């Protein structure tokens, strides 16, 4: 698809703009590109009393025209690619694409005639949220990271267990 001003911008300044524009309120459009329905269940639970993402100024919207953030789950089935592109195109910029769950990050399916294997193959992803499924807490953290409200911890993590700290 043809690049938009907000796509050509570097991720850094994009994140700055988004933090400036959506710092307080942001509307989320979810898109299922072939998930196993569990990620969807977790996403629905974000709005449930236990997590209540509205308190943080996030809202779900069915209309991509009103959406600032595209929460993509699933390994991007090739047959769905048209719909995925259309949905992305239908969103006004600046927009954030969040790949959600191991499928979307390429952990479960490899690229083959059925699926692309990861969202990145079709859409420009800005934030990656691992997990199978990512728990609502992980999703909240990811959303916070996406709008630059929470610091991302990932670069700091080594996944080297304690007691082996000298692994550096």
């Amino acid at each position, binding site marked *: 698809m043809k690049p938009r001003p907000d796509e050509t911008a570097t991720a850094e300044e994009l994140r700055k703009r988004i933090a400036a524009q959506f710092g307080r309120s942001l509307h989320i459009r979810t898109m299922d590109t072939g998930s196993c329905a569990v990620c969807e269940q977790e996403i629905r639970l974000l709005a449930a009393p236990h997590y209540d993402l509205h308190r943080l100024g996030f809202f779900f919207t069915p209309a991509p025209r009103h959406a600032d953030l595209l929460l993509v789950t699933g390994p991007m089935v090739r047959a*769905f690619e*048209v*719909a995925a592109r259309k949905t992305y*195109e239908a969103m006004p910029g600046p927009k954030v694409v969040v790949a959600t769950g191991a499928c979307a990050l390429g952990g479960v399916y490899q690229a083959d005639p059925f699926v692309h294997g990861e969202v990145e193959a079709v859409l420009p992803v800005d934030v990656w949220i691992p997990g199978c499924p990512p728990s609502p807490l992980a999703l909240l953290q990811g959303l916070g990271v996406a709008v630059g409200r929470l610091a991302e911890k990932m670069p700091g993590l080594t996944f080297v267990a304690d007691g082996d700290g000298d692994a550096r």
Partner: protein
Amino acid sequence: MNPLDLLYGAGGAWLAAALAGLLAGSRRPGLQACCALSAVGGAAAAAGGGWSMVYGNTGLVTPGGGPTIVGGPLQLQATSLAGVFVALLGLVAVAIAWYAPRYHEPGRGTALYLAAYNLALLACLAVLAAGGMVTFLVAWETMSLACYLLILRHPRSDASARGAFWFLALSEIGFLLVVAAFVILSSKTHATALDAMAARAHLVGGGWLAAAYLLALIGFGFKAGLVPLHVWLPEAHPVAPADGSGFLSGVVVKLGVYGIALFAFRLDPVAGAWPGLVTMGAGALTAAIGILYAMGERDIKRFLAYSTIENTGIIVTAFGAAMIFHAYRLPALSAFLLIAGLYHVANHGCYKTLLFLEAGVVEHATGTRDMDRLGGLVHRLPRSAVIAFTGTLGIAALPPLNGFVSEWLIFQGLFQGFRTGSDLYGILIVLAAATLGLTGGLAIYAFVRGFGIPFLGMPRTRQAAAARETGQPLAGPGLLAVACVALAVGAPVMLAALSRTARTVTGVTLGPLLLPGKLTVLPAHADFSAFSPTYLAVFLVAACAVPALIYLAGRPRAASVSVPVWDGGMVSFKPRMQYSAMTFSAPTRVTFDALYRPAVSVTRASDDDPAGRSGPVHYEAQVTPIFERYLYRPVIRAVEWLADGVRPVQSGDVNLYLLYVFAVILLAYLLGAV
């Protein structure tokens, strides 16, 4: 020199046009000559009609002196009341003359058709210019026959035979009633000239006056299409050529209205308010029923025909209310409503003819009149779409166009029903106003559908997608569109002229009660309301233009991306996925199902298949034609039964006929002897 002379000219031109048509044969020049002559006649008629509106009634002239036609003198007179209709006749004639050469293929059928058409024009003119009863009736019958030929343009198809038959049968019944009405009046007043009848109306007993009026109302109601006498319109309009339908709706139907007005306001001053009430009720009923049936039609021309019925109803309602006000000694209001009604006559004549002409354009471009087989024509016939849209705005009575002006006037008149002082009549008049309100709302809904389904969206069939603007007639409809705008913006002028007409007819001078300033209009009383069509039009245009200008001015600075419509990520959008004419009107079908009695039938491929294989689906909600089924069919059966009864008389045996002759002669002698 008076308007009548112009009308002679018009008549002559049309006679010549008719002859030219006959002689034209299959040659295009002949066709063009015929149309040119008819246009000249139209121009003359328009001028003469306009003039006689303000001129007043001319004296009665009897060219050829004594008894010339069927035992009666040929008596002509140009009257203000008729002037409105004559002017409309002329305008429509010009528009159609401009339209016809591009619409019709040269050929014998066309030539005969045009001859019949011009004859019909002439007959209509004669009806309107008739100063005597015999002239009127002869002209009226001629007009009916000419229109019958005109509807029979394609005699082979039995649909057109059926339509033409409905037209002729009903107008003949109507004719008999009208004759009866005239006979009553002339026998009681010993006069045949209309003026004389009007002058001596006081000699006639109230009962006879009432009887005559009711006969006339019903008789002309057949032509005007009052419910339940309307059934010929939806049958005849679709089968006639587009310009023929335009002529039928624009002029012929209006002649019925003219007849009603003639009796109500000139010849037949019935005492009491109840005739007005009957008229008003019939009008309101007609309006509501007409628009409701229009909602159920997907054939554009049938749809327009029903909308014609609705508009006739509105006009007749205004006339009825005018009669009531007259009975209650409110001459100003009476005259005001007469003016409003006549204004609506002119408006409807313009935009309805326009819409029929455009329907013809659409049919030529796509080969169908079924709305559910059209769509997206605005991209394929842009110029016609603009013209049709103007007419649609007019007929939907939306400001700033002319339909709004006349309907506003009618409402303002009806809302003043309280001035009658009679609770019953006050309430009934306001009730009629409410009915017209419902009608107006439904009319907007109906014409959103009537324009949106064929012109907007995606083409639903290949034919609709293949439509192209290739030399289709624009000038004729265009002229009418201009007339619509003129009748809206130039409302004060029109109203000034009509107030002169009203003065001639009712003897009431509205003057400042109608037009205090230059551009403001009052509904006959200064303390009720006021508005200015002209200012309104200007304001609305500005209200649309200013934001557009701001947007255009601001445009370069706003960075914008244009993307396709959001369709839920479907692979491809199909024409079958858009609202169709019948689904758009489904809510009314549900709401008024008591009237429609829709018979729903659903067929799914999946139903008769054990495995629930999904496949084609067909859904039909057929509306029951109540009047045909419960009013006319019994009558037709009775007639057939009678026919069967008398058949033995017609054995075809010569001797039997000789016996009949002998019996008759014998009877004559016996009677003579007695």
